[in-house]
């Protein structure tokens, strides 16, 4: 699809806006519909658009497998790490009240970090799933 001029130009124009919108949805989860999962999927869709137009190989050069695997693991570890940090500081598991001096600020910080972890993992997983299916070479046995 790389030879179609309209597709190429429009997708290149749109990609930054899609990524920006994904970040908006991620960080406005407490004030409007949004949060980690939705933002992760929108973030991944930008890379999937790129892969659809320019090919999986070029998209794989932007996001190599190692980075994606690292993203998946780091998101889960961030979430669990926030919980364990709360345990060590004195509250129950995932008790955000103890994360900062003021409980409300602690709740904000806790939810922000946790949603960041979720968004990171979901974006990496969605891109990995697409690259796995699209880049799969049929090898009959």
């Amino acid at each position, binding site marked *: 699809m790389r030879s179609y001029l309209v597709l190429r130009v429009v997708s290149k124009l749109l990609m930054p806006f899609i990524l920006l919108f994904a970040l908006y949805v991620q960080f406005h989860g407490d004030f409007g519909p949004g949060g980690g999962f939705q933002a992760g999927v929108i973030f991944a869709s930008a890379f999937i658009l790129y892969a659809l137009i320019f090919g999986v190989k070029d998209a794989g050069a932007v996001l190599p497998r190692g980075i994606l*695997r*690292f993203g*998946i*693991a*780091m998101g*889960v*570890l961030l979430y*669990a790490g926030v*919980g*364990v940090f709360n*345990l060590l500081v004195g*509250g*129950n*598991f*995932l*008790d*955000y*009240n103890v994360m900062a001096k003021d409980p409300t600020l602690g709740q904000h910080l806790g939810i922000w970090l946790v949603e960041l972890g979720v968004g990171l993992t979901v974006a990496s997983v969605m891109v990995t799933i697409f690259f796995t299916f699209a880049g799969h070479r049929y090898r009959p*046995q």
Partner: protein
Amino acid sequence: MVAHFPALLVIIPLIGAPICMLVRVRDWSWAVATICTWASFAISWLLLQQVISDGSISYQMGGWAPPIGIEYRIDMANAFVMLIVTGIGSVIMPYARESVRAEYGVRRVYFFYTSYLLCFCGLLGVAATGDAFNLFVFLEINSLATYVLVGMGKDRRALTAAYQYLVLGTIGATFIVIGIGLLYAETGTLNMYDLADRIEKVGASRTIGAAFAFLVVGISLKLALFPLHLWLPNAYTYAPSMVSAFLAATATKVAVYVLLRFLFSVFNIELTFDVLPLDYIFAALAVIAMFAASTVAIFQENLKRMLAYSSVAQIGYIVLGISLHNAAGVTASVLHLFNHAIIKGGMFLALGCIVYRLGTVNIHHLQGIGRRMPLTTAALVTGGLGLIGVPLTAGFVSKWYLVIAAIEKGWWPLGLLVLLSSLLAVVYVWRIVEVAYMKPVPENAEQVEEAPSSLLFPTFILIGASIYFGIDTDLPLDAAIETAKQLTGNGE
């Protein structure tokens, strides 16, 4: 830190899984998985001691008080099931190192241990939680990891087995979600103990009845109760050997725990067994499972498939104990949970040793194996004796309690049926004994030696435990009696 044990028990494998994914040096992922499972076993043992001495423990996730927050309530049933799961998961780890490395090669084992830790974490989460939707989430974490593990078998039929398990398991989980949703719509809460109070006030309305039906069918699908067991034989046969052992010993047991929790704690015992005729339905299905599955097991040529059908029959015994719903019946069920887990786990591990050396478990290729691999076959046959229920094995104790429970309820024909179906178990165990010991070794058979000690050692731990707990029944019997008292008595 001691106060946080309920959360730590579930979180340690959950942290271990992404670490396994990142660690790809040789088989250090095996080391991470072993540390996580052994730590969980230690924590669950300490938790059990705490519950025995102090009573139920309640842990609030996130500091929010129930019923608004998610609560992990550990009482005797929870603690015992978590001990079984972590125990089997830890004993299998030394076995896994050699077995998985032989089947996958060192470079890809990290995928295996990541899925294994996620499955393990899901099972513990299902057992620990006191919130209905949280139970569904952990059940799905566990199920998805299980589909991956089953699909990793070497035979291409492992893929179709995993797919069939996926479709049926997802339908079961969706039924559970519908049941939980209907309960939430009627009562407005998701916390299991709050649900129990509110359901008692509401009584048997149509919504509660529909929720009950959906929940029981969904859980029965995960449990492999008789007509809904179709996924089990294929999944156990074609999965890798360690996965078969782990699943046979833990997945259905945790589903039995979920059934006990919903039937006895959430829906109180009068609603379940007096208003709705669940005891007759479960008793009928259990008896059919016991006889039909044992009969099918007799005619199987693949030993793993024979043990899989035998598992369906043993689950029939467990559900029979639940259907009797007196203290002795629930004691028998919980006791058989423990005993079947160690017996079946040990037998599947022994079969894995045979696969490791011979590459097949077809009964026609195993002639004279009692002479070629004496220790492994001894373990297999001893486990088989436990399945039959010979005195001095663990299987005898649970069947004894089951027959006593049937007589106490006044349904003594059921006790007779239990004994008759044990005779069927004699037939298929005798088939193994006959081929292993009484057929001569064929001339063109390859030279095989005994399985390596890292594979034999966990097998003997589990089979030895089945003999030990048949003689000294203190730990499982006391735990089972206490569980039954808490579940059938005045509830919580």
